[in-house]
């Protein structure tokens, strides 16, 4: 318990602080509603325009719609940008203080980054669930709504997969943070990874809807575990052994990225220069 104390404290402190940014949460929710609405309508148009292709689709329109709302709700769980706190600390040299704490610097940044993403996702997801899951059916638009998982097994798989998605996304966030620490700026890296993540996490288009020949590659790449895998588990599109494979891939990539991040961090910290004053 005492060993975990610094990390638990750092997590809860950041989490509680970030939860207080209400305006940002509401603004984020509004944007994600807008995009979610547009995407849902586009999918509906596609499914209606090509009934033959729709019948052969690996996902039904209802699944795609639920997937889309969930993807919008959990957008903040994808590591779009470096942790702004780390970027600022690197810029100002306050990173020196992180090295003065009697804790593992990688773990400290990891829990703080995880808290940052979780605290941003939580209010947005709650609002989205309220809006797309409750309000839409109530006003008679249940065809367009976020639906509950089809089975208990799907719900359970999602409940396991979601924390894994956070762990994996945080492990990737750490890679971004370490690149920022090495290059001293977060601008280039943020732009570079944004487009990569939006496509390969399934946020732009559910990965199952890409051509068949690309399916294996799309499933085993690391970004699938940050959003696509938990969402496919939720809508019941991955079941049985496929569900286990999805969870296994999440675990594999989390462990692999943490190991990679630790090696990279040790190298960066060895040649760290804190200049001036």
């Amino acid at each position, binding site marked *: 318990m005492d060993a975990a104390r610094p990390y638990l404290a750092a997590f809860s402190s950041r989490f509680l*602080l970030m939860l207080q940014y209400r305006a940002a949460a509401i603004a984020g929710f509004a944007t994600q509603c807008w995009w979610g609405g547009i995407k849902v309508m586009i999918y509906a148009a596609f499914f209606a325009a090509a009934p033959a292709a729709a019948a052969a689709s690996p996902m039904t329109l209802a699944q795609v719609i639920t997937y889309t709302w969930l993807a919008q709700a959990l957008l903040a769980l994808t590591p779009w940008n470096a942790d702004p706190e780390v970027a600022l600390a690197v810029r100002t040299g*306050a990173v020196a*203080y992180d090295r003065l704490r009697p*804790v593992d610097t990688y773990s400290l940044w990891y829990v703080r980054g995880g808290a940052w993403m979780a605290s941003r996702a939580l209010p947005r997801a709650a609002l989205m669930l309220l809006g797309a899951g409750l309000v839409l059916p109530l006003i008679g638009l249940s065809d367009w709504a976020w639906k509950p998982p089809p089975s208990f097994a799907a719900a359970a798989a999602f409940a396991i997969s979601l924390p894994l998605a956070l762990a994996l996304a945080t492990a990737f966030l750490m890679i971004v943070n370490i690149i920022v620490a090495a290059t001293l700026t977060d601008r280039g890296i943020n732009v570079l990874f944004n487009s990569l993540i939006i496509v390969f996490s399934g946020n732009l288009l559910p990965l199952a809807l890409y051509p068949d020949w690309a399916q294996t590659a799309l499933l085993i790449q690391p970004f699938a575990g940050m959003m696509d895998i938990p969402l496919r588990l939720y809508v019941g599109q991955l079941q049985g052994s496929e569900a286990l494979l999805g969870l296994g891939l999440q675990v594999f990539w989390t462990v692999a990225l943490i190991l990679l991040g630790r090696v990279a961090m040790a190298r960066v910290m*060895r040649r760290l*220069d804190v200049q*001036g*004053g």
Partner: protein
Amino acid sequence: MPQILVEDLAKTYRVAERDPGLLGAVKGLVHRRHRTVEALRNVSFSLEAGELLGFIGPNGAGKSTTIKILSGILRPDSGTVLVNGRVPFTDRIAHVSRIGVVFGQRTQLWWDLPVIEGFDLLADIYRVDSARYRANRDELVDLLRLAPVLDQPVRQLSLGQRMRAEIAAALLHEPDILFLDEPTIGLDAPSKLAVREVVARLNRERGVTVLLTTHDMHDIEALAQRVIVIGHGQVLADSPFETLRANVLAERRLIVDFAHEAPDVTLPGVEIRSRRGQTLELAFDPARTPTPTVIAAIAAAHEVVDIHVGEPAIEEVIARFYALHGAGEA
């Protein structure tokens, strides 16, 4: 064995350079030029437990680099550093749990957190026993007069309040050694006095070893038993403060107001430092030219309104010391 042992410490930085202007910027895209800056070269000193050492030197002399190496943030290029028998960089976690560090130019408290929550978080990070933490925190809050600002976010504190909070933050885990890098920079007089008082008290009452860098010579005068002067990455002087003062303060000043335009005073061993209307400032070594002799000679030859005897400002002395050793700002 001393608590802090530093031998032949050397550290260089690589600094990127480019020619000025558009052409320079374009050239920089193709070919990066780097220059190596020697921040430290063979710095050696040692410190016993309970000492209070002042570390002075011009900007860029290597003071902060030394502190960063001693606190385990930077790895030296060569040389030996042992603090409490540990090598700071390689044994970082064990090392940093026993030291407290304040960088006057950076903040270690969380900008958006109230001061008290920042303290609580640090106590968790250092795994301080909660009863000890509360007792120690209350004492520090009292000593540094922090009670009125405990619930304010750090970003709303004045510089003086923030620095006092920073010092408390560095002491919550009761370190044996305190490194203070310009803790009084930019502070008003009451805040400076509070900082000095708490540092002196910790050193006296708890036996905390203190290593302090500053540009404010009054900090040194008020606190340090021993002073190291560093310039161009080298130790220029290492002596008790009184010795340093006697060596470089061996000068007396005489400010004389004359009844008429200030005359040219030519006395052996006496120099004119400045001339302002009817006032002259003279400098001499009292060991070789006794003060009464100078006064008598001037009073006999000129009509004098007032005479004031003084010593050069300590800043002036230190500046001359730097100049003497060619240790101007690097």
